[in-house]
C-alpha cells in the first residue's frame, strides 16, 4: 500500500533558482526508499517539504491518500506523529543544556493523548526512557548525561530513539550518518535496518553515499539539481538502462 505519494512537488527559495522541480514518486509501506544526490541537489529541501517544515510552492503530498500539503499547523499535528525526521548533525539536534532523558521525552509528552503504543509502553518516565535507550542499544546510564558527554554515534542513536519514541510509520532520514566516523556509520546503519523490521517502519533514506543507500534500500531515487533523474530497484543498479549521472555515481563508488 502506498504510504506516501508525491505529485509534481515544486519549491523555490525567494530570489534564487528553483530548489525542487516538479517531482513525483511513491513510497510503499514497509519499504526503505533511498534517495541519493550530491549536496545542493535539493534532497534536504525535499525532506523538509515532506515534513511540512518548509512550505511548498506547487504540487501535492498524500499521506495514506490524505492530502497534507495545505493543512495548517493544528491539522498537521496528527500527521507529525506518523512522520518523523532524523537530521544529519546530531550535535545540533539535541539541546546541549538538557539531559538526554529530557530531550527524549519531548515527543511523547506532545502526543501522549492521541497515542496508543504497540511496541513501547509507558509506566513511568524512567521506564519509558530505558525502553528507548534499549531499542537503540545504549546503556540506561546515558539518560542522565548531557549531549556533550556522548560520542557522535551515541548522539545520533539518541536522535533516532527520540524519533521512534512515538512509533511513527514513516521515518525520513536526512544524511543520518554523514557526520559520523566510519565505524559508527556501520553500526548506525545496522541499527536502522533492524529497527525498520522490528518496529514496522518505512524509511526515506537520503544520502550522498551511494553504497549506504544501496545497502539500506530496496528502491533508489537519484536526484540532480532539483530533478529526479533516475528511479530503479537496487538489483537494477548495474543495468545499462541507468541514467548517465547514476553511472557516474556508480563509478565514483566502485573501486
Amino acid at each position, binding site marked *: 500500500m502506498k504510504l506516501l505519494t508525491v505529485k509534481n512537488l515544486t519549491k523555490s527559495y525567494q530570489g534564487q533558482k528553483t530548489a525542487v522541480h516538479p517531482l513525483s514518486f511513491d513510497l510503499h509501506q514497509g519499504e526503505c526508499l533511498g534517495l541519493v544526490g550530491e549536496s545542493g541537489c535539493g534532497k534536504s529541501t525535499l525532506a523538509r517539504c515532506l515534513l511540512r517544515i518548509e512550505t511548498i510552492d506547487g504540487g501535492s503530498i498524500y499521506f495514506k491518500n490524505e492530502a497534507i500539503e495545505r493543512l495548517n499547523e493544528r491539522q498537521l499535528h496528527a500527521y507529525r506523529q506518523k512522520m518523523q525526521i532524523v537530521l544529519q548533525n546530531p550535535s545540533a539536534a539535541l539541546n546541549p543544556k538538557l539531559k538526554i532523558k529530557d530531550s527524549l521525552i519531548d515527543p511523547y509528552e506532545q502526543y501522549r493523548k492521541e497515542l496508543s503504543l504497540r511496541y513501547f509502553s509507558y509506566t513511568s518516565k524512567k521506564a519509558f526512557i530505558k525502553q528507548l535507550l534499549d531499542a537503540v542499544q545504549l546503556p540506561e546510564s546515558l539518560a542522565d548525561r548531557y549531549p556533550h558527554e556522548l560520542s557522535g554515534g551515541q548522539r545520533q542513536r539518541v536522535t533516532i530513539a527520540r524519533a521512534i519514541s512515538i512509533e511513527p510509520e514513516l521515518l525520513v532520514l536526512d544524511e543520518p550518518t554523514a557526520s559520523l566516523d566510519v*565505524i559508527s*556509520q*556501520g553500526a548506525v546503519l545496522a541499527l536502522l535496518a533492524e529497527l525498520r523490521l522490528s518496529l514496522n517502519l518505512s524509511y526515506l533514506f537520503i544520502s*550522498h553515499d*551511494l553504497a549506504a543507500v544501496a545497502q539500506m534500500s530496496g528502491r533508489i531515487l537519484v536526484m540532480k539539481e532539483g530533478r529526479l533523474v533516475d528511479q530503479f530497484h537496487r538489483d537494477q543498479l548495474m543495468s545499462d538502462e541507468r541514467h548517465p549521472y547514476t553511472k557516474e555515481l556508480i563509478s*565514483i563508488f566502485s*573501486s
Partner: protein
Amino acid sequence: MLSIRQLSIRSGAKKLVDNVSLSIREGDWYALVGQSGSGKTLLSQAIGRMLPPNLQAEGSIFYKERDVLALSSEQMRTIRGSKLSYVFQDYQGSFTPFRTIGQHFEEYQKAHGCFDSRARQRNALDALDSVGLDESVYKRYPFQLSGGQLQRVSIAVALLLSPDLLIADEITTALDSVSGHRIMEFLAKRQKETGFAILFITHDWRPVKRYANRIAVMKEGQVVEAGEKEHVLDHPQHAYTKQLINAAPTLDRVLAASREEAEIV
C-alpha cells in the same frame, strides 16, 4: 624523503601520539587512516612544526636528511609553504572572508618572494586552471564559491610553489562524495604532472582506496598497521584494521551480497 622516527607527542604525562615511525617516499600517495582522537592530525601538525604550544614532541622527523624538529623557526618558515604545504578540512576558515581569491594568491606569493605582479597573476590563473576553475574565480570572494570550489582553490594555492609534500588533512570529509571525488581526481592529476608526495589524512578509507598506494592505520596514538595498500586492505592483519574495513558499506560488497541473495532465491 620524509621519515618519521619514533615520534611521540605528549600533553603533560599523557601520550597523544605514541612512538610512531613511518616514511614517505617521493611520489607516494600515503593515506593515514584513523578516527578522531587517534592522533593523526597531531602527527601532521608535528611535521610542519605547528603543534599547539602546550604539547611536546619527542623523536625525530627527517626531511631530506634534516631533522625538522631541530630546525630554527627561520629555517622552518622557508620550508613551510614552499617545500611542505597543507590543505585543511575547514575550507571556509582557510580564507579571509573580505578578500578575493586573487588577493589570497597575491599575498601568498608575495610572502614567498615573488615580486613581479604580472608573474603573480599569471601563476594564479594557471593554478586555478590546473584545478579546473576558470578565471572568473580570481575576482570572487570566498562566500561566493561552493565547498568543492574553495577546496580546489586551497589545493591550487598549496601547490603553487611546487612543494615536495602536500599534507591534506581531511580535505574531503566535509564535502559530499561527488565533490570529494572531483577533488581527488585533480589531486591525482597534479601529482602525475609534478610528482609531489601526498600525506592524505582521513577517517574514511573508502574514497582514497583508488588513489593511495600506501596506507597506515592509526588508533589511539599508535600505528597499528602500515604498508602497501593492497596488503593492508586485502589482507589486514590487525583486528582494528579488519573492523575498519568491514564497518561501512562499499558498493562492491553490497552488490555481491545482493547477488548472493538472488542466487539463493
